[in-house]
């Protein structure tokens, strides 16, 4: 069973460039110096203030310390290679079988 029509090229086609197993996804998460964590915390604090979310300096540090998995994820997605000549409809990102890229919800 195909999830898009056989005669249609997929919008984008992912080819993932796997990292070498010896290279961590984000070297900062295992060896990141405090200055980098402080930089992250400062960024989080600034971003919070811009959108009106109250956050203390200590809590920004805690959020920074809790962000390793997210930073890994961001780095991983940045390594993905795919043909990107077609735009993505971020409001209908789920690709389904009915010939639509919109989950058949028109």
């Amino acid at each position, binding site marked *: 069973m195909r999830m898009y029509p056989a005669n249609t090229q997929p919008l984008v086609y992912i080819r993932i460039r796997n990292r070498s197993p010896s290279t961590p996804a984000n070297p900062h998460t295992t060896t990141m110096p405090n200055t980098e964590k402080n930089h992250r915390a400062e960024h989080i604090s600034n*971003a919070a203030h811009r959108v009106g979310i109250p956050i203390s300096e200590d809590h920004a540090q805690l959020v920074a310390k809790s962000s390793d998995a*997210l930073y890994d994820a961001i780095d*991983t*997605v940045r390594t993905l290679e795919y043909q990107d000549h077609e735009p993505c409809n971020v409001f209908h990102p789920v690709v389904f079988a009915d010939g639509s890229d919109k989950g058949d919800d028109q």
Partner: protein
Amino acid sequence: MSDRREDLAFASIHELAPKIKDGSVSPVELTQIALERVAKLDSKLNSFLDVWQDEALAFAAKAEREIASGDYKGPMHGIPIGLKDLVDVEGKPTTAGSKVLQANIATSNATVTKRLNRAGAITIGKTNLVEFALGSAGVNPYTGDARNPWDTDKITGGSSSGSGAAVAGGLVHGALGSDTGGSIRMPASLCGLAGLKPTYGRVPRTGVMDLSWSKDHVGPMTRRTADCAHMLNVIAGHDPRDIASSTQNVPDFAADLDKGLDGLRIGIPEHYFFDPDIVDPEVLSSVNTAIELLANNGAEIVRIPMEWVSQGRAINVIISVAEGLAVHEKLIAEHADDYTPAVRTRMLTALSIPAVDYIRAQRARQAFSVQMAEATEGVDVLATPSIPVLAHTIEECTVPPGEALAEKSHEIPLFTSIFDVTGEPSLSVLCGFDPTNMPIGLMISGHAFDEATVLRVGHAYEELTSWHTKRPPL
């Protein structure tokens, strides 16, 4: 509780339905049993946040009268159920397990509530959950942790923690959960249930608190796969008020349950899902035994290389927290101190995501979904473990205030989240127990809008085994 009443408490919807229809089982008695079990056991399980005894009994009496007069509405008629407390019921609180919404009273019914009411299901109350459904272990320091009926020191899995505990404990016969990274299938796996995440768009989310607009799914949690089919028959179908709601035809999901495994091709990923560096040996052993059983009973097994598949987890993480913070931006700005510390911290990690990385994740998701479709083109379903690890203790997964988020919880959704990214239907069924008597789940995932085949395989597996007949030691 007498043996008969306990047998009724643990009976499946599939078994009960014909007996309710012919009058040999009473919806009032079933509801009384459910309420008795809540009163007796929920101090241990903490599975319900709110129970509506009088309304439930009145609704059950009404169902009994309707059935006696020949107005039988189908297999959910007269069945006691619970709703995860992010599903609106008019006039009742929807707290999403948070102090932030402690005074939030729903002004109308969610679409799924209306449909269950119309089908004659007896909703006895709202089930516990991880605050705002953001967490995989099932802990919630505000409402108190739901506890696993198989061992009350262990996590239920989340975020539909109370739904998992309530169904596994025989308090209700089914419950609704929601699934954004695995929140139906993780508690289903850890509590020994059948839990179905339907195709994205199959079940409308109108009146259900959002977590991640492009990945939220609502679905059933029951003790048997057939029961998921009966619940899905009631809740599936288009609702124009949910922008993602599908107009696809809704089949009878129970129609193919007994067709068996002959002619079905089951894909087994060669990468990630069976990696011994990721998956506990007990989980591997149980799932491999289950696959062998499927193969020995008519299914053809097809190995599928998927060296790219682990990347789905990274895509899921970015989209979940970015959309989660977008949903919560106003609430968290106004009520930051009312969020539990771990959920607030997890939400705020999204402040680290540049817009371009969110868009990149959504673009990668489209490519990932196409690649999954191509890889699985020649099979009917994939069979994998539901979660890679055995049940942690609640203590191991509890984050003390002021500490960074627990790594233990990050392992749990590694596999389930892949199918939230693709939007494909995915079911967890009980496939064994570890040496400490904790359940292990087999995940069966299929093609978009083909829940019927997923349910058919799950039901066929259950018919070949007796795991589902075991009851937790409460």
